[in-house]
């Protein structure tokens, strides 16, 4: 459903026809005034066409030259990709440098930590046995067991034991 404005515009421009035209013209309260306004619209159109239709672009060749230069500068087929690539390589280099530095730092940190705690990674595994020693008989006694898994050798180290209880027996 067209609005009045749409119908009026179509009527001015001669775009209404047939039944639609007849209905619209019949709906106009003052046909003579409407026709006068239509005539005014034609005059306005002619005035605009006459006064504004002949604007010319001076220095046409320079316009095209400037445009060519600008297009070559802003979106040239070779320049822009190379610039983009060089920027991308710089970012990539930065990224790899960062990653390499981080890896180097981690390796150094691991080495330093290992050197500070050499016993932790000894080939000997020390186990404190669940020994039950009478504190009254041997107050400072400790029993340790050293085990070399590769050689399948176990050494029992007893220290501070003043006397071996009679009920102790090797199993």
């Amino acid at each position, binding site marked *: 459903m067209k609005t009045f404005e749409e119908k009026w515009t179509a009527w001015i421009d001669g775009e209404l026809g047939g039944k639609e035209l007849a209905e619209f013209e019949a709906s106009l309260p003052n046909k003579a005034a409407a026709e006068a306004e239509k005539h005014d619209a034609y005059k306005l159109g002619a005035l*605009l066409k006459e*006064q504004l239709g002949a604007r010319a672009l001076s220095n046409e060749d320079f316009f095209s030259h400037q445009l060519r230069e600008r297009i070559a500068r802003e979106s040239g087929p070779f320049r822009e990709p190379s610039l983009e690539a060089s920027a991308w390589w710089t970012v990539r280099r930065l990224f790899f440098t960062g990653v390499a530095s981080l890896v180097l730092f981690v390796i150094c940190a691991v080495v330093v930590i290992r050197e500070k705690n050499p016993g932790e990674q000894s080939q000997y595994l020390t186990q404190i046995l669940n020994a039950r020693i009478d504190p009254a008989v041997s107050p400072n006694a400790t029993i340790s067991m050293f085990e070399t898994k590769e050689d399948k050798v176990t050494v029992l180290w007893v220290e501070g034991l003043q006397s071996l209880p009679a009920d102790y027996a090797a199993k």
Partner: protein
Amino acid sequence: MQTEATLAQVDVSELDLVKQCQAGNTEAFDQLVTRYRTRVFAMIYNMVHNEQDAWDLSQDSFVKAWKSIGRFRGRSSFYTWIYRIVMNVTIDWLRKKQVKGAGAEFNDAIQLKEIEPASRTLPKADPLPHERMERSEIRTRIDNAIAQLSPEHRAVILMKEIEEMQYHEIAEALGCSIGTVMSRLFYARKKLQNLLKDVYENI
């Protein structure tokens, strides 16, 4: 038929040029620019009323067209397609200018070169000084009247009256419905008729 054939040839060659542009041929684009630069410039000039701004906006429009020509699918004519870019660029610029509240619009110190439509075929004497002054005054009146329209109304009235575009072409160029175009045309005409009645009545 002769005209239709010629038009068809023009259309085909234009489509060829577009395809060459899409393949990266800047010379083909240069030909399209040569075809449309004057109309594009005139259209923008009538919207912004300043030669330097019109020049810059025309350049911006063509650069934008070059950058996005890969997306042109040929559903509309190249002419309508580039007008859409021109209108987007110009209306955006006018809106920004309105927001900034920049000074008077009619600050064009450069005298425009004017070409009479019939000058190529008919010898015509230069206008007399009083005629020239009268013409300049009329143009100033028209420019002032158009400046009172919104960017969208300016675009519609200029495309219809100067470019003689169809409703659907204007709608496509402005990205709106045909009904909106007709409605805008109604109000733009009404306003200009009120502002310029004494001008066109006395010519």
